[in-house]
């Protein structure tokens, strides 16, 4: 068999001859009016976006910004759902709202298939990954996840105050995805940097941003080479060998999908676990009830996912159009806020409250339509296991210093510092 030479030269170099994307001026600083100047990267949004979203839903349900080269923010469930379903008019060519739009020629594959892909390619790229992420498949990770959660809590021995975001929530998805991809678990701290570079470093100067993103690609390319030399039973080897339309995948497809699997699984689940613990720390009635009724945990976890949905996606408008009252232009961003949809009173009773025994909960935390989060079963397993182990081991805990809690900026929102008093 001929050696696999797809990754031997730097395939990225070949791309530079192709079409280039467009950059816009970077605008930062306080928001003047959320209806006309919104930014999900400003501290006011990170600290508490819900009053902003509730206000917009009332007075300007599709808000506008001139930042990021122009974009829109729908806050009603029905608009968010309509956009998620309408892949004809809204492209996933870029799904992180930034100051750079990749070239249109990148569609329908996009940089990180299948999350960045449009039909019809999307379906085929997604089909390659679905079997590895079914509920049954991810259940195989549960015993090791549970043991790992216990080991993290064992390490709290002797401490009265711990950082539940940095010392607990963060480590769980990093360990799980490292195992699935076959990456060394001790590289976890690097993964955190990659996540911050890609998701939070949106408003950095272009050269800095390019350098940071390059580091991630260099790392992944090195991992691909290690797996070429030493194939294993993991997702990286699977992707290297996978075929689409009778051929092995393009190297950019393999590495782009690795970017997706590494990044999308980490800060999302980290955020969901952290936000749930934050809620339970400040809500003794809910905490006591879940300790007394562990069977309610799966229902409560769905409510935490609804009320503190960590993930906002983005789309690009394909062509100029008048849409639900907004004059959208081609390549305008859509900030697709599943968190805002999840708190729309037109869709949910007591939308602004956390009701841990909510029986009817048609939330959209994992998106709607063809891009339903590929890792949703994995995320649910991790969230339930992490909360179950924590509540068994630490039934009593509280916020040690509420103002010290910090939340991540950008499209993935969750606690990044969460000091909890545990005894």
């Amino acid at each position: 068999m001929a050696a696999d030479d797809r990754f031997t030269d730097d395939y990225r170099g070949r791309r530079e001859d192709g079409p280039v994307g467009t950059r816009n001026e970077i605008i930062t600083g306080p928001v003047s009016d959320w209806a006309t100047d919104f930014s999900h990267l400003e501290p006011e949004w990170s600290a508490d976006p819900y009053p902003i979203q509730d206000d917009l839903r009332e007075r300007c349900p599709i808000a506008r910004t001139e930042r990021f080269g122009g974009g829109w923010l729908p806050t009603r469930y029905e608009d968010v759902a309509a956009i998620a379903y309408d892949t004809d008019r809204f492209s996933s060519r870029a799904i992180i709202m930034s100051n750079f739009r990749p070239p249109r020629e990148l569609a329908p594959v996009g940089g990180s298939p299948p999350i960045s892909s449009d039909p019809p390619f999307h379906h085929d790229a997604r089909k390659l990954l679905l079997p590895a992420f079914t509920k049954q498949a991810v259940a195989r990770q549960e015993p090791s996840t549970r043991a790992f959660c216990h080991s993290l809590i064992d390490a709290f021995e002797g401490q009265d105050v711990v950082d539940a975001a940095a010392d607990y929530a963060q480590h769980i998805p990093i360990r799980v995805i490292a195992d699935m991809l076959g990456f060394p678990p001790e590289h976890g701290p690097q993964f955190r940097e990659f996540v911050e570079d890609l998701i939070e470093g949106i408003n950095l100067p272009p050269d800095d941003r390019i350098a940071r993103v390059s580091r991630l690609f260099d790392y992944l390319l090195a991992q691909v080479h290690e797996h070429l030399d030493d194939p294993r039973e993991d997702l990286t080897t699977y992707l290297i060998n996978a075929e689409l339309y009778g051929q092995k995948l393009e190297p950019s497809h393999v590495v782009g999908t690795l970017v997706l699997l590494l990044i999308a699984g980490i800060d999302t689940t980290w955020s969901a676990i952290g936000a749930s613990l934050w809620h339970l720390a400040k809500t003794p009635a809910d905490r006591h009830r879940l300790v007394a009724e562990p069977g309610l945990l799966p229902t409560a976890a769905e409510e935490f996912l609804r009320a503190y949905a960590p993930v906002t996606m983005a789309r690009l408008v394909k062509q100029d159009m008048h849409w639900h009252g907004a004059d959208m232009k081609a390549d305008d961003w859509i900030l697709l806020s599943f968190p805002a949809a999840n708190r729309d009173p037109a869709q949910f009773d007591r939308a602004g409250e956390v009701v841990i025994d909510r029986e009817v909960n048609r939330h959209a935390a994992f998106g709607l339509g063809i891009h339903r989060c590929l890792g949703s079963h994995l995320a649910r397993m991790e969230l339930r296991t992490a909360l179950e182990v924590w509540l068994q081991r630490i039934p009593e805990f509280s916020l040690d210093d509420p103002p010290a809690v910090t939340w991540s900026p950008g499209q993935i929102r969750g606690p990044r510092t969460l000091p909890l008093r545990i005894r």
Partner: protein
Amino acid sequence: MKVQISSERCQGHGRCYDLVPDLFGEDEEGYSRLLGDGTVPPGKEREARLAESNCPERAIEVLEGT
């Protein structure tokens, strides 16, 4: 009472097979499938309605009186 799944709408969220594992299961790609012919056994009506009302894609329909 019967239930049916619209395979065009189902995206594999799995709320139905999470909530009511004796009526719904997952296929090898995570999409939902009926474990039987869709007939809801007596006493399981509430669960069937629960699956219907929690499907984010509105892919499940309960057919009352069938």
